[in-house]
């Protein structure tokens, strides 16, 4: 570059000394043009870089997608978690509240009967009293059979109520996934604005759903889950399967 300029400068001196104004002017013009084209080239490069950076920014539309759909979705999902856990807690508490008095009454009556039975065994009981005791024992056995069954049913209900941990756990994991996604995209955004013209790699994460084989957890009402073809309830599943020849 410099050698070429030097050569032209020498040539210019030769032209001027030879008083060849026409050739000298042509050379000066040529040299100006050379400089201009360099400038344009540099400007072009800058424009392209800027264009690419803006494009990359637009490509990173994941962030706007997140704010538009997935954050409101995540709020609904967390509301679903609150509702589910509340429902399970009430179900458990109901079963406990119903069972505790039964267990208490069985225990109290058994103790009373045991005392009376001991008196009978030590021959401290009149025939009249024994007749009463026999009636009480019969009533107690009958009641305990029924209460025992109720307590068993309530404990089963407590067992089933714990399914919330699985269902809400799946939903919470999905929200954690989203939070990580937001974090990564925000870091990308900071990098774009921090480094001039640095082109970030567009982060593309497929939102989880059918097709990737992984599953997406329970369908939460008022979220994007509503738009997909979700079967509601066991009856719906049974109908679908029987239509498939099951």
């Amino acid at each position, binding site marked *: 570059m410099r050698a070429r300029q030097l050569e032209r400068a020498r040539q210019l001196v030769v032209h001027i000394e030879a008083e060849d104004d026409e050739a000298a002017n042509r050379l000066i013009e040529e040299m100006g043009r050379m400089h201009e084209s360099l400038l344009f080239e540099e400007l072009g490069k800058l424009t392209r870089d800027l264009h690419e950076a803006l494009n990359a920014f637009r490509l990173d539309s994941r962030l706007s997608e997140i704010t538009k759909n997935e954050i409101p979705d995540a709020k609904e999902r967390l509301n679903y978690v609150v509702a589910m856990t509340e429902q399970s807690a009430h179900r458990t508490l109901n079963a406990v509240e119903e069972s505790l008095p039964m267990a208490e009454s069985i225990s109290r009556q058994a103790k009373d009967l045991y005392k009376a039975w001991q008196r009978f065994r030590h021959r401290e009981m009149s025939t009249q009293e024994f007749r009463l005791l026999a009636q009480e024992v019969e009533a107690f056995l009958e009641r305990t059979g029924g209460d025992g069954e109720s307590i068993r049913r309530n404990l089963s209900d407590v067992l089933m109520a714990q*399914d919330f941990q*699985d269902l809400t756990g799946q939903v919470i994991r999905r929200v954690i996934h989203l939070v990580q996604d937001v974090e990564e995209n925000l870091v990308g955004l900071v990098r774009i604005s921090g480094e001039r013209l640095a082109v970030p790699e567009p982060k593309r994460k497929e939102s989880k759903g*059918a097709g990737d084989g992984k*599953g997406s*957890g*329970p*369908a939460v009402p008022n979220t994007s889950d509503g738009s997909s073809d*979700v079967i509601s309830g066991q009856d719906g599943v049974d109908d679908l*399967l029987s239509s498939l020849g099951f």
Partner: protein
Amino acid sequence: MKILIVDDFSTMRRIIKNLLRDLGYNNTAEADDGSTALPQLMNGSFDFLITDWNMPNMAGIDLLKAVRADARLKDMPVLMVTAEAKRDQIVEAAQAGVSGYIIKPFTADTLREKIDKIFERINAGG
């Protein structure tokens, strides 16, 4: 009757285990994911598989496909117990050869009903 229960949530495994015990099935084992379940199935003499769909490493649907593709395991009844309720998924499971499909949350009655139905079909030679 030896049953393998596969779910990544230990709470759900315990629920199913307890329900099975209620139904008279006491011989159960557990795995937390398809990739740990498959070696257990290969080594153990299991008669029945109950699996979730949504699990971290190997999903239930892939476990089902792996079971159906294995010469020794291919006839094992597989019951899917999952929160996945999309039509496409249920159809996919049916096509992969699932024996029954239960949507979470489910009831003890539903589990009993589906298990009974599966064994009825096996005993009928279907």
